[in-house]
């Protein structure tokens, strides 16, 4: 390479490095504000030493605790518990839940903190993981049975999916919630 090109390459490289590190530092400083939501443990134990205060508007993301969903029979009001690694936060919501909402599912709710462990939500969004597989495989690996929402009995509105209550579910269900994108997919691992 001739010296002029070498010099130009060096200048471009150094400027690029400076810009990259400036933006890196900026993002590092903004780290907490870029997070879309608080996890239940961050609400109860505080995030970076700061506790969210009652009355604060915030988003929470966690996994719906199986068995915690309770619905009002006369209205659209629903309440459920969210968990990540330990602490549990209760969310109450009035409105239509997304199709993917079900027990064991990751969800993100926007609302107001009404007490230390309670949130009244105005919006509930479903989060899904990065795994895609046919229903038969899911049934074999996870013990989740896919049923079309249309076939559902109206009385049981808790979920369009039924967990069959065999010990297989116990052994396969993740002890950790699915919020971290690190689930392993191994077809035929069973």
């Amino acid at each position, binding site marked *: 390479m001739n010296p002029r*090109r070498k010099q*130009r*390459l060096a200048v*471009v490289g150094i400027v*690029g490095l400076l*810009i*990259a590190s400036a*933006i890196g530092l900026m*993002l590092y400083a903004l*780290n907490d504000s*870029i*997070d*879309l*939501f608080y*996890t239940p443990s961050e609400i109860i134990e505080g995030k970076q030493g700061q506790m969210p205060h009652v009355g604060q508007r915030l988003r929470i*993301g966690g996994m719906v605790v199986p068995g915690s969903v309770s619905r009002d029979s006369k209205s659209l009001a629903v309440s459920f518990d969210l968990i990540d690694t330990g602490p549990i936060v209760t969310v109450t919501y009035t409105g239509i*839940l*997304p*199709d*993917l909402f079900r027990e064991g599912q990751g969800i*993100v709710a926007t609302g107001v903190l009404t007490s230390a462990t309670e949130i009244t939500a105005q*919006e*509930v*969004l*479903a*989060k*899904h*993981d*990065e*795994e*895609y*597989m*046919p*229903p*038969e*495989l*899911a*049934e074999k690996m*996870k013990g*989740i049975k*896919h049923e*079309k929402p249309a076939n559902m009995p109206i009385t049981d509105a808790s979920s369009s*999916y039924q967990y069959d209550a065999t010990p297989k579910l116990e052994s396969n269900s993740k002890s950790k919630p699915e*919020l*971290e*994108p*690190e*689930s*392993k*997919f*191994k*077809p035929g691992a069973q």
Partner: protein
Amino acid sequence: MWKWLHPYAKTENAYQLCVTLQPWLWVSALVCLAVGTVWGLAFAPQDYQQGDSFRIIYIHVPSAILSMGTYVAMAIAALVGMVWQWRTAYMSMIAMAPVGAVMTFIALFTGAAWGKPMWGAWWVWDARLTSELILLFLYIGVIALYGAFEDKQQAGKAAGVMALVGVVNIPIIHYSVEWWNTLHQGATISKFDQPSIAPEMLWPLLISLLGFAFFIGAVTTIRLRSEIVRREMHRPWVQKLAHETSENS
């Protein structure tokens, strides 16, 4: 080592390369897109959670991956233009820009259409969605900056600087789902792990991805050819070419 590349710094050789490549790119693009989309939309199995709605993945993921891929290619072209000062470098940069912008738009649009029924929202300001939107603005910025200069050599330099600076956004888009809490799920195929998708769903996705790549290549060669002809209008070889074309028709 890169000696074989040097002839393409000349506009005439680059033009000829485009002419040679173009039919192959079109044929491959059409074959891959037809096979990938028909297989994916009609024959791949349903997803266990999302049913048929997941099939938009066969458009969303290829366009999203290639919106980033095209940007990197554009930035490499800008780097070559800046350091080696090839005449064709900035031309190919600007030939790629609108194609990449359209890919980014498709990724955002299909993502919104997918997000509404699955998540329950068209748009959320999470790190992944926001950084992809910034990518669209970067593309538009490069195109606008290039258009703002009368002198196209100058325009290429300015737009090239912008393209190079913007490249820091690419790793941010890719790792956003790991660095921060987002509504968007983690990576399914672009990771150093086994893909988290069943093989019978993965194959059509990869073929569709290839099809999108060939399609971008094909459109870029057309745009590069016309850009070369427009910029080299007064060169004898272009005028000869123009005469031959008008005599044949």
